[in-house]
């Protein structure tokens, strides 16, 4: 290919060690002419990504000064060479292509910024996350290291668990003592017809394991009570409240405030849903919002009153969104805000929730709980019945 060789002579090619010396000296624009997924796996420090197909559109932003020294690299040196030709044609005066690309660079033991901690399969699986600047590889690693407890593997827990598992939350704890019933399947999409009669935690685990082998599912096949809640909550970073009864909701609140664990709390009934995020001492707690539970006639359950199936998905995924923001430390969680969703009118309403100075759990006059009393709670069944 004499013509190819001839063309090649027109572009300066430099060895990785020469490129490294120039980069070290400064005043070099370094352009990575590969695809985004390759860039994410490993790239040179300060290398700016300009994929070959977007060269014409993006080079001006990445390399505005056409007289500056501009070094291009790719995987093995071919794409960067062609890109260097294009740049020359565009009027860039001092362009070089790094021979052998990043492969040769790494063979010589030169450093790269790598997506360390993730396997090639994970880099592929989570690429749509890591492409987001707000998430990136670091954010995905945070998710893979996060431990999230779902209280309830039913209506709210089913969609929340599915999406958190897909997102790569590394440890998902599931609390539920129920078995799958045919009447659950209109909304509890993590279960299926064949699993009727199977414990919900087991059914959810089977679905999650098929979806994402990265997730470690911990089954807590029990009902949370005063004797077990502290031990269970202690193992997790974020708690998701999708419980179907008031005693569990109040107990969960009081224990999570003591342990300073954030709780993403939602509830659904008929065509309505509510959601808020309670971060102890940073914002209000569940008791600041609802000091006392309503009497039974004002607190019907979904089994008594019915619920539109999609309410579970809508509110459950809003919970999953809150969890991911808390894990990643991005955005504005629903702290001090209660979001209402009405399905029939398709209307969202946001209400303010203030810390209650008289809150018996998180207020300034709330009693200090000594370590030895951490697991002692009043009888919530009685409290809610009364």
């Amino acid at each position, binding site marked *: 290919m004499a013509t190819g060789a001839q063309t090649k002579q027109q572009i300066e090619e430099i060895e990785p060690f020469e490129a490294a010396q120039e980069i070290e000296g400064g005043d070099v624009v370094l352009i990575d002419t590969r695809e985004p997924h390759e860039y994410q796996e490993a790239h040179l420090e300060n290398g700016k990504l300009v994929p070959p197909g977007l060269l014409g559109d993006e080079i001006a932003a990445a390399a505005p000064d056409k007289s500056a020294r501009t070094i291009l690299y790719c995987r093995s040196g071919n794409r960067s060479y062609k890109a260097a030709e294009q740049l020359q044609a565009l009027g860039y005066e001092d362009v070089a292509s790094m021979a052998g690309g990043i492969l040769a660079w790494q063979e010589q033991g030169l450093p790269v910024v790598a997506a360390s901690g993730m396997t090639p399969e994970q880099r592929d699986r989570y690429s749509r996350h890591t492409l987001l600047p707000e998430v990136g590889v670091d954010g995905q690693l945070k998710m893979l290291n996060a431990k999230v407890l779902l209280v309830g593997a039913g209506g709210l827990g089913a969609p929340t668990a599915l999406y958190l598992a897909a997102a790569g939350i590394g440890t998902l704890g599931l609390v539920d003592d129920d078995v799958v019933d045919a009447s659950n399947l209109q909304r509890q999409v993590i279960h299926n017809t064949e699993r009727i009669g199977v414990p919900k935690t087991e059914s959810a685990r089977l679905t999650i394991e098929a979806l994402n082998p990265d997730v470690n599912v911990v089954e807590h096949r029990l009902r949370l009570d005063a004797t077990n809640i502290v031990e269970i909550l202690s193992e997790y970073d974020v708690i998701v409240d999708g419980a179907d009864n008031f005693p569990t909701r109040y107990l969960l609140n009081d224990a999570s405030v003591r342990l300073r664990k954030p709780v993403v709390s939602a*509830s*659904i009934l008929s065509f309505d849903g509510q959601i808020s995020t309670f971060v102890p001492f940073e914002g209000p707690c569940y008791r600041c919002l*609802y000091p006392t539970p309503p009497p039974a006639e004002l607190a019907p359950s979904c089994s008594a009153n019915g*619920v539109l199936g999609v309410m579970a998905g809508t509110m459950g995924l809003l919970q999953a969104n809150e969890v991911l923001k808390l894990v990643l430390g991005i955005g504005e969680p629903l702290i001090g805000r209660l979001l209402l969703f*009405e399905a029939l009118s398709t209307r969202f309403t946001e*209400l303010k929730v203030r810390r209650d100075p008289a809150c018996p759990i998180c207020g300034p006059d709330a009693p200090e709980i000594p370590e030895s009393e951490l697991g002692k709670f009043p009888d919530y069944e009685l409290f809610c019945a009364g």
Partner: protein
Amino acid sequence: MATVRIPPVLRAQTGGQPEVDADGSNVGEVLRALTAAHPDTESQLFGPEGELNRYVNVYLNDEDVRVLDGLETAVSDGDTVVILPAMAGG
């Protein structure tokens, strides 16, 4: 005239209406206008002494009346009063 938003658990007492218009210069008067028009809501909103039940949250627009002036909180024309009970469905 204010608009009172009725939660699902109280709609049986308002003939199914999700919103009821009610007159009053403060939150207490607006809620009393509601209970006058729909008497079955009374026992669920108010206790025996005429105080708002502790388990009923009431908001004027987006603010809890507990941090405003409670039932004395002034209501302007076009305001929305939201009645909000806790829900436990999961």
